[in-house]
């Protein structure tokens, strides 16, 4: 059982159940399209809140799709056998998060330009927002994986994941929006993007480690 096999299998599973991936993107688009009804159609205001709305709805979409990340494999015994395989649990976590991000993170980024049009965002802003979202959704998936691993076997784990994970999402949110705002007002975009990638690299190390410990406890 190799890392390649884990990723390939998860992608195959996701592609055969397209509806799951589609619901994540639909949730993102619908929630983002909801705000103009609440706040009114004035272009100036919409432009001002566009980065915030897109990032928060993207964050919630990632969070929504994470709860099943380990639960399905835990319930049918696959996770138990993965623990026994020669592939360390940390790499299994990395593989599954990568597959999850490819299936749910990337479609969000593909859908973002459509939402940007709804909010009248200039095209130039997208050139900064998309890379920031690329880094951001990856970091969010990794942090969320820790929450998903910790709540396996917990009562009402689904509601618990946001409570555990949202405080840890705040730095990613702050620097994601900072980069996007800088992109719109063509300020200094390098600093926030650099910090965002630093957060991602940090989580690339911490998330598999923490999730691995959490999964081992769940398998006891």
């Amino acid at each position: 059982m190799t890392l390649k096999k884990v990723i390939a299998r998860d992608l195959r599973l996701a592609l055969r159940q397209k509806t799951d991936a589609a619901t994540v993107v639909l949730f993102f688009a619908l929630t983002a399209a909801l705000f103009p009804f609440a706040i009114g159609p004035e272009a100036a205001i919409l432009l001002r809140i566009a980065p915030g709305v897109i990032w928060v709805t993207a964050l919630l979409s990632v969070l929504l799709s994470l709860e099943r990340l380990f639960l399905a494999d835990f319930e049918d015994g696959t996770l138990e056998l993965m623990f026994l395989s020669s592939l360390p649990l940390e790499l299994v976590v990395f593989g599954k998060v990568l597959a999850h991000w490819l299936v749910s993170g990337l479609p969000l980024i593909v859908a973002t330009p459509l939402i940007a049009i709804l909010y009248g965002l200039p095209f130039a802003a997208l050139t900064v927002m998309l890379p920031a979202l690329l880094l951001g959704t990856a970091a969010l998936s990794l942090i969320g994986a820790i929450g998903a691993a910790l709540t396996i076997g917990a009562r009402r784990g689904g509601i618990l994941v946001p409570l555990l994970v949202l405080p840890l999402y705040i730095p990613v949110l702050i620097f994601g929006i900072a980069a996007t705002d800088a992109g719109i007002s063509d300020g200094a975009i390098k600093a926030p993007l650099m910090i965002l990638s630093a957060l991602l690299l940090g989580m690339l190390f911490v998330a598999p480690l923490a999730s691995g410990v959490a999964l081992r406890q769940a398998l006891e």
Partner: protein
Amino acid sequence: MHRFANPARFLRIANALLPWLTVGTVACLGIGLYMALFASPPDYQQGETVRIMYVHVPSAWMALFIYVFIAIASACSLIWRHPLADVAAKAASPIGAGFAFLTLVTGSLWGEPMWGTWWVWDARLTSMLVLFFLYLGHMALMGAFEEQSRGYRAAAVLALVGVINIPIIKFSVDWWSTLHQPASVIRLDGPTIDPSMLWPLLIMGLGFKLFFATLLIVRMKSELMAARVRALSLAQLRNA
């Protein structure tokens, strides 16, 4: 120490310490209160409201100190599987959450005369708000499992992930708040304040720490007994 071991050693020390800690707490808080309310001068700029600092700042210290304490206990629990560390983390968490909430309340009470509103997204208050959410997450996860030992260890992992995120959160909130508004007004908690105000602050801080130690021991004793009750009722269930 074995999961079912007899925590006699801890209990002997705890029962010996408890009276001293209680006396120490009451004494410190009494002296601190007297100095804070009577013996220290009002601030030339803020007037009497500066007295709120004597409860606000120690609470903030305690909120952070207790989270670091929980993180250390969590590390002991995960690395050496020390059952007392689990019990300490579970006992300390609600106290820390209380102090974090207290800091938020006294902070807004202190800021209101200056800012005119009850809540300002000041960097320190916002970080404390996030810390408060971290505490709530830790307590929720601790109690979310049928089997308490799962709760202990899951919460331990969360506490460790949380503690390495605290500086990151602090840094990003500071960066965010300077981005959106100038530095806030409250500038008084640095050691530069004059001794007549520093001493009450330190004594109140010591009083809060002793209060935490006393309450921690009381709560750890009841948690150990709860673990014993769970074990006994399980054993009786099986033999019945």
